């Protein structure tokens, strides 16, 4: 399909990211926005922008009908869904196709095939791809059936939402006794999150890593992979830090190629087109099992861009225009090391509770090897309506060691005022011996890490903090004393305004 204008059906950093790709291809970008996002960066950077509706996603970014209507009205020939929202709704891809809008993603049938986790597992098993043992592809099972199958798979187990993703509707089950209660809880959560209470069981692998393979597939049957990303640093199944390559694979190219081949075969099994990611669990013996396929662009795609030099979003657009891939498998070289830290508006000192408010000051790290993708700026409000991702800090270094050192200095430079962020979490994590040694699995953050423990062995400066807080308190005290004095004497409003300005300059 040919098009020169792309509607981005998303918000935040990923909408900005996609607008950049459009502009760098000389194409126009159309933004859509909710009432809460009128001044958001994606609206400001786009060539055109149209209001969807109120802040709640269901009334704005999930309104397929309105989005398609705006695409038609503005003359956009394609829609990029980003991640989240409508990105993995096959009916949206289908609706685009029916309106002759290019959907910058896979065919609806691929989304469907991978969207139901049970069907996906059955499909790849048929293609000879190993999956984690579980109740794959058996459709909707009752509690009774699940309770019967559980001992056959063996405990510990994971109950997971069939329609799921992002850790929702997921429960760990250690024994048969606690199973009925946990199944119930998982079903309730799944129902609330996805409108589908179906769950399936999966064996819980110990000491496993979460490693995923980025693939690209064009409409001409070419499928390539861009190497792996290590995503084991998670908390409650939410990724926090990713790197490429994986320190577990590192120079084992033969292993990388084996995983890459399986990923390519997985994509081929569902006739996949465009960018996608195949997630694997990898055990200590380098056995790997298919977890799921994300049929969309991922949050962590920039680390692959950093090591391969390939602009994944530009490739997505090229693919949707019917072009051949611009690279062949043999041209893909992983060069150096990249790390991404997700900076979330949440308080690492208080159980990672989200934090909302106005960002009054936002100064991003820059310099060699540092990339920041963000949708916020000075004065932007982090609202409770959307997810808590403020920005992604991506660094590149010649080696993993250099990348870690560079990330440390980048986080030290990063200054966000107005909301709490998890930057101190990342700083503490980057200081952990086991992290530096690359020895961690998906349970590392939850089982082996705590902010308190991490800060025990850190050189901190409490006496400097004492001086700082005392000076600020002292200045405040003096200032308020002064203001009261002046207020008594001074009657001109104009002088007041001038003074206030000077104070806040």
């Amino acid at each position, binding site marked *: 399909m040919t098009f020169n204008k792309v509607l981005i059906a998303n918000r935040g950093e990923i909408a900005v990211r996609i607008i950049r790709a459009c502009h760098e291809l000389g194409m126009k970008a159309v933004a859509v926005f909710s009432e809460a996002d009128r001044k958001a960066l994606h609206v400001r950077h786009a060539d055109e922008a149209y209001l969807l509706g109120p802040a709640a996603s269901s009334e704005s970014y999930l309104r397929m009908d309105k989005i398609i209507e705006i695409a038609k009205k503005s003359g956009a020939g394609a829609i990029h869904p980003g991640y989240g929202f409508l990105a993995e709704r096959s009916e949206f891809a289908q609706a685009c196709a029916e309106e002759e809008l290019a959907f910058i993603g896979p065919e609806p049938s691929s989304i469907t095939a991978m969207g139901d986790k049970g069907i996906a597992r059955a499909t790849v098993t048929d293609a000879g791809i190993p999956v984690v043992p579980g109740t794959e592809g058996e459709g909707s099972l009752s509690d009774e059936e699940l309770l019967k199958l559980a001992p056959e798979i063996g405990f510990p187990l994971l109950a997971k939402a069939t329609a799921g993703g992002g850790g929702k509707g997921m429960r760990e089950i250690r024994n048969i006794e606690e199973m009925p209660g946990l199944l119930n809880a998982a079903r309730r959560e799944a129902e609330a999150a996805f409108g589908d209470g179906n769950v399936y069981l999966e064996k819980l692998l110990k000491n496993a890593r979460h490693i995923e393979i980025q693939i690209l597939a064009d409409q001409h049957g070419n499928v390539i992979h861009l190497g792996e990303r290590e995503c084991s640093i998670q908390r409650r199944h939410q990724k926090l830090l990713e790197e490429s390559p994986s320190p577990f694979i590192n120079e084992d190219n033969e292993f990388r190629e084996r995983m890459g081949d399986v990923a390519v075969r997985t994509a081929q099994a569902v006739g996949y087109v465009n960018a996608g990611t195949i997630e694997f669990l990898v055990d200590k013996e380098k056995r790997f099992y298919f977890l799921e396929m994300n049929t969309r662009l991922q949050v962590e795609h920039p680390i692959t861009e950093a090591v391969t030099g390939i602009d994944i979003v530009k490739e997505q657009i090229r693919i949707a225009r019917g072009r051949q891939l611009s690279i062949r498998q043999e041209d893909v070289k992983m060069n150096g090391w990249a790390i991404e830290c997700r900076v979330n*508006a949440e308080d690492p000192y208080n159980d990672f509770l989200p934090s*909302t408010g106005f960002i009054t000051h936002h100064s991003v790290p820059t310099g060699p090897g540092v990339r920041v993708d963000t949708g916020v700026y000075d004065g932007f409000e982090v609202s409770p*309506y959307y997810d808590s991702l403020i920005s992604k800090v991506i660094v590149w270094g010649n080696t993993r060691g250099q990348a870690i050192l560079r990330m440390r200095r980048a986080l030290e430079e990063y200054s966000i005022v107005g909301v709490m962020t998890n930057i101190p979490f990342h700083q503490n994590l980057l200081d952990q011996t086991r992290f530096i040694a690359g020895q961690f699995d998906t349970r590392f953050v939850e089982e082996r890490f705590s902010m308190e423990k991490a800060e025990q062995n850190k050189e901190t400066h409490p006496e400097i903090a004492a001086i700082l807080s005392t000076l600020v308190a002292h200045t405040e005290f003096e200032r308020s004393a002064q203001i009261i004095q002046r207020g008594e004497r001074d009657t001109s409003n104009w002088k007041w305004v001038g003074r206030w300005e000077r104070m806040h300059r």
Partner: protein
Amino acid sequence: MKYITTIGEKEYEVEILANNQVSVDGVTYHVDFQSVSGQPVFTMLVDGKSYEAHIYREEDLWQVLLRGTLFTARVEDEREKRLRAESGSQAAESGEHILKAPMPGLVVKVPVEEGEQVEKGDVLLILESMKMQNELKAPRAGIVRRIRVSEGDNVEQREALLGLE
């Protein structure tokens, strides 16, 4: 001007002297302290060492984010400290802790009942915000009093949710 500044368990006697000097527990430092463009970002040179910090007020405490570590400081002059010490010793026993909403959100669950005994770390309330289910936990053991919200309520930031006695 003399202050007693408490960080964690430790008390620092901080005196602000003339000529950009500050003494901490009797040791004198040369301090060059500046606010950066009116933001709560501060730069300070202490005997040549360069520090940068974000400093916010939170009720009567100061939060200092310094080189990736968050310090909570209480700054008092001697009179304030004495007053607090006298009143505090009683309050600590009888005081009711009011659980407030750390952010706006939707109450999805209140798994406790009034009069229920809870332990430190028990979940008192689940608040949905930013597409996450956030568990608000008991900061200490106590008895649940006056639950002011129900499931399905939308609450504002800092809104009182329930008491813990």
